[in-house]
């Protein structure tokens, strides 16, 4: 690459950085003040692209385009305020993860709302009036709109900086980011502050989306892509740091632009196509930054965040009633093949539910008792599933051996990734696990020769007698029961106590001689191992495996299952996984708008059962005088 070409790519990177910055800045502000990780932030960005498209095409001209961009930012800001007032305000006292669930439900609802309003096709907006041409720079032609974008990012950065430094609103934001309870005790109405911060953050996301319509089409997939990008930028820059967000946006956009610019390079012994690295580049940057600077480039160590949620109840051993109930359910499941003779679908559903239970229970193991909120549990599922399928495909390994190898591969991955992850906590840990999962996904997706790329691996069916649905169902049932009981056993062993002690008070746990990182690392590895069992079973149950099945969606599904059931109960993930898997299998078949329906169901559950389904029943049980 010549120097000119290099500089040209740098300019390209800067214009992309502005878009990244706008969305990340809003996310960072919202998280700082409300402590809510707003998963719907990418959806607000996506709404921005669609609304601005409508202004630009329906009204048209200079007013439609530039006026539309301003109007879009305001409209999305109002939508953000409504979300805060109608939904989030009701759940500020709920556990942090529950708020995640609520915002994820919004992702589903907003996505379907956009589908309904604008349809499934990509919509490309008109070119920006006044910036239609291109300017010749360094011997190449750069669209003048890109230059405009390059300028916009630093301008917004400056405006935000002045607002935060010079206005009372800005001072309140900074104070609340550190200690919102104290701000309230000094007479500041937090509700108003939260709503306005949420509106500001949403407006920035809307603005970011609106500015993109002249470059890229409005598309229904942008919500999760934008969310992922924004997370990476915020975490790399340091949560709550606006200049950090800009710095991170520039670094990530530049790395991506340079990957594209370098293109295919022949090293003599191996040829590498760098443009394929764009999918992983940002996550690699994030992983490196988090390992070197755990709180991001310009972030500060988060002091003990003052949680306003109630302290967590200790988990209790199963009562006799629960044990009997568990045995009855198990016995009923054993009889399911007899009942299902007339309806083979029931067995397929049963297998799906059991695999979901293995997935959710293993995730819960590190999330609940371990306090490690993994956003990338799909990685271990994927290592198990792909491991089993590829061993059969390439090495011709027998079914049984592949099924044993699957969890071991997942264990290997969990040991490697976990070693880094347990060094962090909170949102940073969540993001690093997400980064690792994305790296696994991207490796699978782009290593076509080995993994089959986007087509995946097909034709991995189990041999007789396991090719019969009822036999496979029983195998899955046995393995799921073993997995669940094994994890339970760990939790009530000294190892489990040590893991919980490390979650509740790392310093005190260390002071009594517990190596907290080591215990959490082992916990992480055990969860990966068990998750791998589910992955292996999944590959043979479907006869195939594709990158889609190990995408970020699966990680989020796992979170939803665990939260739906309740994080602080051991039966929670089982109930949550069952409810979720059945809902997904049944609701999805009923309507084109299954996402919205699913989201609505989650929202109702969140508002009605802020402790999860099982947590709510346990609370009810205590209230009516039952003794647990």
């Amino acid at each position: 690459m010549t120097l000119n070409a290099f500089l040209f790519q740098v300019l390209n990177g800067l214009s992309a950085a502005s878009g990244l910055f706008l969305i990340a800045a809003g996310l960072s502000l919202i998280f700082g003040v409300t402590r809510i990780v707003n998963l719907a932030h990418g959806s607000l960005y996506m709404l921005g692209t669609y609304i601005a498209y409508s202004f630009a095409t329906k009204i048209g001209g200079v007013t439609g385009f530039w006026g539309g961009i301003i109007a879009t930012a305001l409209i999305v800001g109002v939508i953000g305020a409504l979300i805060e007032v109608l939904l989030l305000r009701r759940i500020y006292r709920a556990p942090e993860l529950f708020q995640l669930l609520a915002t994820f439900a919004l992702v589903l609802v907003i996505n379907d709302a956009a589908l309904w309003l604008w349809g499934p096709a990509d919509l490309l907006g008109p070119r920006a009036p006044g910036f239609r041409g291109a300017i010749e720079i360094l011997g190449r032609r750069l669209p003048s709109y890109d230059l405009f974008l390059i300028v916009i990012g630093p301008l917004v950065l400056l405006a935000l900086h002045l607002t935060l430094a010079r206005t009372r609103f800005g001072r309140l934001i900074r104070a609340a980011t550190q200690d919102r309870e104290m701000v309230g005790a000094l007479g500041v109405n937090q509700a108003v502050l939260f709503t306005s911060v949420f509106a500001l953050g949403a407006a920035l996301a809307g603005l970011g989306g609106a500015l993109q319509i002249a470059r890229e089409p409005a598309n229904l997939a942008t919500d999760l892509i934008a969310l992922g990008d924004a997370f990476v930028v915020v975490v790399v820059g340091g949560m709550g740091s606006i200049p950090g967000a800009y710095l991170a946006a520039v670094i990530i956009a530049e790395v991506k632009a340079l990957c594209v610019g370098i293109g295919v390079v022949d090293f003599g012994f191996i040829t590498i196509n760098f443009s394929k690295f764009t999918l992983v580049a940002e996550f690699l940057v994030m992983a490196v930054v988090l390992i070197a600077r755990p709180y991001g480039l310009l972030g500060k160590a988060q002091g003990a965040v003052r949680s306003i949620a109630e302290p967590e109840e200790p988990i209790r051993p199963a009562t006799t009633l629960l044990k009997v109930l568990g045995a009855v359910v198990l016995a009923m499941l054993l009889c399911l093949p007899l009942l299902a003779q007339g309806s083979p679908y029931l067995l397929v559903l049963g297998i799906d539910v059991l695999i979901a239970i293995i997935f959710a229970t293993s995730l819960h193991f590190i999330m609940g008792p371990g306090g490690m909120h993994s956003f990338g549990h799909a990685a271990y599922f994927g290592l198990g599933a792909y491991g089993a399928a590829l061993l059969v495909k390439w090495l011709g390994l027998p079914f049984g051996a592949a099924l044993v190898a699957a969890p071991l591969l997942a264990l290997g991955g969990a040991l490697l990734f976990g070693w880094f992850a347990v060094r962090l906590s909170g949102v940073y840990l969540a993001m690093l696990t997400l980064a690792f999962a994305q790296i696994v996904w991207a490796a699978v997706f782009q290593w076509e020769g080995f993994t089959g790329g986007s087509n995946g691996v097909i034709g991995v069916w189990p041999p007789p007698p396991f090719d019969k649905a009822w036999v496979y169902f029983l195998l899955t049932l046995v393995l799921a029961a073993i997995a669940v009981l094994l994890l339970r056993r760990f939790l009530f062993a000294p190892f489990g106590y040590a893991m919980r002690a490390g979650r509740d008070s790392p310093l005190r746990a260390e002071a009594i001689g517990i190596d907290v990182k080591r215990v959490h690392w082992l916990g992480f590895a055990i969860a990966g191992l068990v998750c791998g069992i589910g992955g292996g079973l999944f590959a043979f149950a479907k006869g195939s495996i594709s990158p889609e099945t190990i995408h970020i969606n699966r990680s989020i599904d796992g979170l939803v299952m665990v939260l739906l059931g309740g994080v602080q109960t051991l039966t929670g993930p089982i109930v949550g996984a069952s409810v979720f898997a059945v809902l997904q299998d049944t609701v999805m078949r009923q309507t084109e708008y299954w996402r919205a329906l699913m989201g609505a169901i989650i929202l109702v559950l969140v508002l009605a059962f802020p402790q999860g389904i099982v947590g709510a029943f346990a609370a009810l049980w205590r209230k009516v005088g039952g003794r647990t």
Partner: protein
Amino acid sequence: MLSVENLSAWYGAARILYELTFEVGRGEVVALMGRNGAGKSTTMKAIMGLIGQRQGTVTFSGEDISRLEPYQIARRGLGFTPEDRRIFSDLTVMENLDIGRQPPREFPDGAAAPSWTPERLFALFPNLAEMPHRAGGRMSGGEQQMLTVARTLMGNPLLVLLDEPSEGVAPLIVEQMANTIIELKKEGLSILLSEQNIHFAQLVSDRVYVLEKGQIQWQGTMAQLSGSPEIQRTYLTV
């Protein structure tokens, strides 16, 4: 001014306070004394509405404030300075003061309450006047203690809940704190002071409630407590 009836509070499943009943009159300095863990700070947080699980009635200026949000309680003229100070460490001294700012206020009988400006507070705490633009995180413990009191006063409170102002600061600052409390009392403010240190409490308080295990074990005037080494030994000496 402030009257508390049957106040109880819980952290999760653990009960901390057992039906406390006490009051603070206008212009009075009342000390809430007891050893570590007796429930002094919890009492203050419960009055301020900062503890979710609480029962009982808190009346301030004749109004029931037991169900109000912390910000509503603060806006009625109840100031709170927490034991751990909770200074906004990224904000400067001036900015910290600005967060606490509230409009001037009147007592229920219409008399104007003392009204504070940064200038007046700098006169009260000369140390702060030397560092108006220093970040809160870069101040000494004693300076932070002054700032947290000053920040609360910016809200022009009628009554201040002052949680262990003498804890962990240099003897010189302790003395200065005592003078400040006497100064505030002269201005007409009421103060509920939580304290383990009898020497400090003796300098400033009119009356005393002694807490142990979340219950009021003794009440009387400061003079009575000073004259009774036995009560001091039972409830206060470590």
